[in-house]
């Protein structure tokens, strides 16, 4: 693997445009070759009814990379993920403080257009959540809502998205059948296609494989890896082997006195091979967590 060494000129230009230390001198993995900050959390804390769930997380997530959020249950990984597209707004009593930027967009600002933000940031959940309609309608609903009405454009966009998730050949003859007739793995890929039709820049994946059988899980995992580079992917997973296979970067969350904290983060290789924190080492070896 190559050490990333941007030209000084490019480095300066990027730092000026983003106002952030975008270049980190560590090894890149797989598809992730240019380390440009895409999502920046600074001192991000999340509380539910005054109970702190996540405390002062500062984390940079790079463009086009797969970043895995790992750690034991209840340490705020999903809360962090949901704050990126402000789904935390839907949770009664949830309060987010600190700063979160996607490129130049201040996500937490009250003026942020949430519909626009969520179009830019797609999300997939643990359980496939297809709408109780046909396969085609599942994809059409969001497209129509975002202003696409032309039948021909709709049809071609839907075909492209289904091909992108490898579902087209399996469903092209039954687009009008209920989406619930698909298998779990197919439903999860349909959910992914549903997010991809909106051409997001970021994909948030909350344990996308944990409700699937091993074969479907493998297919979805390969699919996610094939999307890296084109999308910035943030994945919450409890499966360390999966994080090791997929991720360019890993952030380990840990529960300290009942609230989640970011314990350690960095390139996947260094987290897995030379963890700095002893809890990280214990978690990775399976001794803790």
């Amino acid at each position: 693997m190559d050490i990333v060494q941007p030209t000084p000129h490019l480095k300066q230009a990027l730092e000026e445009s983003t106002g952030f230390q975008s270049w980190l001198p560590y090894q890149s993995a797989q598809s992730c070759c240019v380390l440009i900050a895409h999502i920046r959390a600074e001192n991000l804390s999340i509380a539910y009814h005054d109970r702190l769930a996540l405390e002062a997380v500062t984390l940079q997530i790079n463009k086009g990379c797969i970043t895995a959020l790992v750690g034991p249950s209840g340490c705020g990984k999903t809360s962090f993920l949901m704050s990126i597209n402000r789904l935390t707004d839907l949770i009664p009593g949830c309060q987010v403080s600190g700063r979160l930027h996607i490129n130049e967009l201040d996500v937490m600002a009250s003026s942020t257009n949430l519909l626009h933000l969520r179009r830019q940031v797609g999300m997939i959940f643990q359980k496939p959540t297809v709408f109780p309609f046909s396969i085609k309608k599942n994809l059409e609903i969001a497209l129509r809502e975002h202003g696409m009405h032309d039948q021909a454009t709709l049809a071609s966009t839907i075909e492209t998205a289904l091909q992108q998730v490898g579902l087209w050949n399996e469903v092209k003859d039954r687009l009008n059948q209920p989406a619930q007739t698909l298998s779990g793995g197919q439903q999860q890929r349909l959910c992914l296609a549903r997010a991809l039709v909106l051409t997001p820049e970021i994909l948030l994946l909350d344990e996308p494989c944990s409700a699937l059988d091993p074969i479907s899980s493998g297919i979805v995992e390969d699919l996610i890896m094939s999307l890296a580079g084109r999308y910035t992917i943030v994945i919450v997973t409890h499966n360390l082997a999966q994080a090791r296979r997929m991720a360019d970067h890993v952030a380990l969350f840990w529960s300290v006195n009942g609230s989640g904290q970011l314990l350690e983060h960095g390139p996947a290789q260094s987290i897995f091979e030379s963890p700095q924190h002893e809890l990280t080492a214990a978690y990775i070896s399976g001794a803790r967590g």
Partner: protein
Amino acid sequence: MSETSMTVVVWTAATLITFPFLWLVGDLLWHGWHQLSLSFLLFAPQDAGREGGIGPILLSTALIVGVCMTAVMPIGIGTALFLSEYTRNDHLLGRLIRGSLDVLAGVPSIVFGLFGNALFCQALGLGFSILSGGLTLACMVLPILIRTVEESFRAIAHEQRVSAAALGISKRATIQYILLPAAIPGLLVGSILGLGRAMAETAALIFTSGYVDRMPTSLMDSGRALSIHIYDLAMNVAGGNPNAYATALVLVGLLIIINLSASWIAEKWTSFNQLPT
């Protein structure tokens, strides 16, 4: 209690409960069947209902029920949406509404009749009319409908709403394109059950839509509903029993059809929703 005696008790109870129903339907068929004919369904009653048919009464009933359902649907769906999508369980206004609906659902229909007479017939000046009757029935049917529809909204998994939000779909569009279509079966079942209740109502209509058995020409005409016709023939008209039986047979037949279709829709939908995932 031994296993056998328990089984006997349960079976006996279940058999006993079907007995009154079978007796009722059997009795109606026995006395009413030979009176039934197409002309009975189409022609106007004569000689205070002893002769002739129930044409105008069927039409009045349909109009009263139509007015009722037209008023009930938008208010019912709107309130159900408010309760399930715009308020949480502990919301003060939500609790107030739920509480008052529970009370309303238990109010005797004669009270609704007097209330309807005071409000629609007198205060609003609609007089004894199909409109007054339909609106009074609407007040009566609303609590049932709202609860059924609210339940069908709540039965939709919360994840659907979160997924929709994650796709940048607005709340309005989520309701319009996802929740309402997904709740249609519940909506249908709720309105069919409400329809059944409205169609069989007597007491609420006596003081609101009135007794007149002529063919109605507008919603402002007084119109006699099926159940009132039965009541009148059986209680006030000597020799009216044969036609009272025939009318009751028509009414019970309609109610059975309505209830069967409600359970058919519910069953269809459940089997559709239980497809392997």
